[in-house]
């Protein structure tokens, strides 16, 4: 099942991809992402950012995604 695409989901997808939590798509194709990988990516980000690990795009997580930060990926392959 692809992740549901509420507006926050799509910007969160971009964020998670930009900072290395989801392998970046080529940009010229959209990728099918199973829910489990998506949830895992959110959990990884929450753990890295030191916030509650819920696997959900809760308000704290969305807020943290708006904080000023460094542009380098958190997860470097």
């Amino acid at each position, binding site marked *: 099942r692809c992740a549901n695409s509420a507006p926050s989901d799509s910007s969160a997808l971009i964020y998670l991809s930009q900072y290395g939590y989801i392998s970046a798509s080529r940009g010229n194709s959209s990728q099918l992402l199973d829910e489990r990988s998506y949830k895992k990516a959110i959990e990884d980000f929450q753990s890295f950012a030191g916030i509650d690990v819920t696997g959900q795009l809760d308000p704290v997580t969305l807020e943290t995604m708006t904080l000023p930060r460094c542009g380098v990926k*958190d997860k*470097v392959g």
Partner: protein
Amino acid sequence: TGDNRAKRYALQGSRWKVKDLTYKISKYPGKLKRGDVDKEIQRAFNVWSGYTDLTFTPKSGQVHIEIRFETGEHGDGDPFDGPGGTLAHAYFPVFGGDAHFDASESWSINSYRGTNLFQVAAHEFGHSLGLSHSDVRQALMAPFYRGYDPLFSLDTDDVEGIQALYGKKTKKDTPSFDDDNDDQDGEFDESPSNEKKTPAPPSVDQSLCADPKFDTIFNSAEGYTYVFKGDKYWRLTEESIAPGYPKKISETWPGLEGNIDAAFTYKNGKTYFFKGSKYWRYKGRKMDGDYPKEISEGFTGIPDNLDAALVWSGNGKIYFYKGSKFWRFDPSQRPPVKSTYPKPISNWDGVPDNLNAAFQWTNGYTYFYKGNAYYRFNDRAFAVDVTNPPFPRSTAYWWFGC
């Protein structure tokens, strides 16, 4: 791996093979004077050279690290996004090491307004040197910008990361960092005579042998080491307790009470004594003004009824200890105590809570005392020294020549 992985720095996997690196600023931000930017950028590099043998020299032409302030798409496929969001990015050594800053940010220097150039630059240069992001929240290499910190200093996580790449600092250059006493590499400990006092001659008072617990220990501006206990004090010599002691505190420091909680001598040459909610300041043996004053008045953010205080040899800042917590006080900054304090004394790996005393001895080491025992602190490892014989050691034997 997994959630229970200890939080710590991360190495990207590449580093520079040379330690003497060069850099240039090819494109400046609009609103700051170039000279100020130059200074802040050098200061940001110095953060890393303070703990390693890395050096950073500005020059023109071919350099290791090129620095540019750019807006939007700027040729590397990693466009900036305007004010906020992404502030800057940098490339790891294997990708060239360059650092790009979003020129649309409101870059500032020594100000709570805008985005602090020095802190962001120091972070980006961590990437240029091979550090990835750390998940230790208070580390410089954490990904999120945490606002201007007038008391900025690298977290031990950052120090461990950069030293994992480039080793510890072995060359002296800037005295403001680790007082790099070669003895600190441990051979200093193999010869216990450095700290072992030769047995005190019989004329020396033995009361501290019977009960070596004391109120506080400090160095005077002249370099003498004093131990306070109750209303008496002793002077320590290189080898033992000086003959002719104890004496009355009030005879030598007129106006000073007994049962002092903590004391230290700051780089201004003045000695501060703390007791209950009050503190005194002395210049040598003379009270330096109208004292006692309230601690809350002169040391805002520091609690009453302290256990110990010292000027730490690692960064020259003043640390206060009480119960299981410690505070860092930097008189040159506003506020002098960051809001993230107090922090747990357990951060000082191996140092116990509920200390009796602490100070930086004339050998540059920092010592902590509790009950009949003491601990010597290794500033670079940021932990109690691992030696043979181990710490804690007997205060009476090693310090009072008992």
